[in-house]
């Protein structure tokens, strides 16, 4: 029986291994990410989740393994071979960070404009057309501002568009980072613990936002979370990582009742489960 996400996955991770000296952060990890799914990667702290993201987005070169990305139009990318900015620009993988990385001294709007750097640079003909204020660039810039505004409305921050990003409250900064990633018009959005530090109401809003993004934009969302309960409601598919090893993979219902997962989360000895 094949799971639905294995039929036409956007991302196929195979035998991914990442070693730091003697430490094996990810050990022979394989999983698929469905094209229009919300996929969650969960596991206790230090399980290697962020390391998986860093491999996906080119910040780390994996020691072994393959990450194959297939766009809807059939274009293929082997992410383990590409540079980080190429992955973002061509493979259209967007990400957020566990410790928020906004451009704090720039305004909220500027943050979203930086995310549209590549189309804008192209329209400005590498600054030449922009320098002379040519019409083509003006139009591209207006579109970029419109797209920023669209996302600001979604995250409910239009009123703060001209304030410095560092002045926003924590929850708003998290949302802004997601909006910034979305301004890249990605095909897959990778979120590293987006619910960390949010209160229950903000957490609910986040879930609504993610479901909305999946529905409206028809993209894949890959989500890291160490708290299981957060992702159960919205995920279609969950992979569980512990000490770099995948211990479970399936629907939320399957994972919830998997004895390996319960053991990992409750700290029960493996022998007792097996």
């Amino acid at each position: 029986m094949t799971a639905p996400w294995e039929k036409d996955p956007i991302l196929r991770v195979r035998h991914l291994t990442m070693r730091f000296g003697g430490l094996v952060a990810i050990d022979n990890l394989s999983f698929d990410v469905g094209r229009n799914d919300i996929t969650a990667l969960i596991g206790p702290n230090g399980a290697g989740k962020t390391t998986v993201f860093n491999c996906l987005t080119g910040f780390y070169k994996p020691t072994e393994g393959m990450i194959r990305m297939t766009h809807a139009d059939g274009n293929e990318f082997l992410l383990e071979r590409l540079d980080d900015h190429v992955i973002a620009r061509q493979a259209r993988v967007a990400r957020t960070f566990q410790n928020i990385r906004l451009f704090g001294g720039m305004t909220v709007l500027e943050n979203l404009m930086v995310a549209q750097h590549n189309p804008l640079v192209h329209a400005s003909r590498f600054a030449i057309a922009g320098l002379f204020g040519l019409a083509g660039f003006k139009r591209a810039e207006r579109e970029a501002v419109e797209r920023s505004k669209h996302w600001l409305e979604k995250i409910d921050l239009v009123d703060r568009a001209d304030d410095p990003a560092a002045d926003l409250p924590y929850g708003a900064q998290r949302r802004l980072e997601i909006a910034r990633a979305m301004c890249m018009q990605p095909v897959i959005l990778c979120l590293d613990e987006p619910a960390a530090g949010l209160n229950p109401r903000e957490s609910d809003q986040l879930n609504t936002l993610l479901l909305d993004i999946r529905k409206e934009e028809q993209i894949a969302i890959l989500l890291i979370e160490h708290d299981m309960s957060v992702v159960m409601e919205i995920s279609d598919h969950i992979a569980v990582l512990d000490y770099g090893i995948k211990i479970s993979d399936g629907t939320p219902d399957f994972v919830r009742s998997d004895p390996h997962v319960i053991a990992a989360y409750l700290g029960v000895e493996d022998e007792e489960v097996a």
Partner: protein
Amino acid sequence: MAQSETSLSARLPSALKDAAIAAFISLALFAFIVGIRTVDDPGKLLLEPRPWLLAGFVGAVFFGRLFLNLFFWSGAHTSEALTSALAPVGQIFERISPWLTPALVVFAITLPFLPFTDRYILDVAIMVMTYIMLGWGLNVVVGLAGLLDLGYVAFYAVGAYSYALVATHFGLSFWVALPLAGLLAALWGIILGFPVLRLRGDYLAIVTLAFGEIIRIVLINWYSLTNGPDGISRIPRPTFFGLELTRRGEPSFHEFFGIPYSPLNRIIFLFYIILVLALITNFVTNRLRRLPLGRAWEALREDEIACRSLGINTRNTKLSAFAIGAMFGGFAGSFFATRQGFISPESFTFIESAIILAIVVLGGMGSQIGVVVASIVMIGGFELFRELEHYRMLMFGLAMVLIMIWRPRGLITSREPSVFLKEKKAVSGELVQEGKG
């Protein structure tokens, strides 16, 4: 200030302790500087100990410090007191800065025709304008992209020598050679930028400093090309659409316009050249800041990793900042060469890089008008204290220390956003990163 009310006797122990520490430090410092003197006895060198002089120095430090501790430094830190005392000045400064720009531009344009203007004032003004241009050029690298460059003088030198060499060897005019010199400097910006792409912070500063020195040493030693320490002389002067600004020029400016010859004409002409060059630098930089490229520079300064995650090629972005900053340095260098008529490696020492960087830091990193004010204050101040000769450097150092205590982020700290939705609000300097690269 609550501590100032505590009695003298209560403060005595801590004051004594502080004075003793200061005395000990001064003992360690002065032991070799004043405690021992070398005497040149024919044939050998003798050491003559001077314990009483040393004791005098250390005693002065001890009692001076004790006195200050007891009667002046009562409680609150002096630096904080200074900051709060001078805060209103800073606020006034921020408030008038929007009007400052047009006022300064009008002043600069009319300067040559103001009644008090003489040759000396024009010479100083040309020098100030040159440093403003250099400051604006370096501001691209340091202020916007956040890359600490201590070798900026290298590009100034490349521009000056490029113009001097093509003008003396191939007879190219200033106006043809100027863009060429800028392009060559930009090329060197990229060449020197490549090896330092992966370096950050202190390491970047050290390597760029070394580059500045390497260029100067190459200029000294490559005798066949650069004439070494003797320098290049008889560099052609710029012409006004082919008209020479000399008494016997063929054709000459004053005969063409039917005005009496005055040596001041040439100085005024030079002043306008550097004014236009500087304004172009400012215009281009301001324009670039609003373009994706300039925004990427600032984003790079804020967070390089986030930039990479957004698909920005940080290598090219850094190189473009180096290249454009170097290009402006090259333009300024050619101007310097044509103004002086003579250049030698001596004009391009590390102190030049340091002064330009000081102008940028003092003005407030990334602030264009801050660079103007800092140049006027620093270069003008240098001129004011010209009689004091080597104490000049001391005054300069002291002023820098005081200003950095008072406004650690420079004169103008707020950052103007490059784009806005409803209203343009300045970003407070405290939130802006200074860059780790």
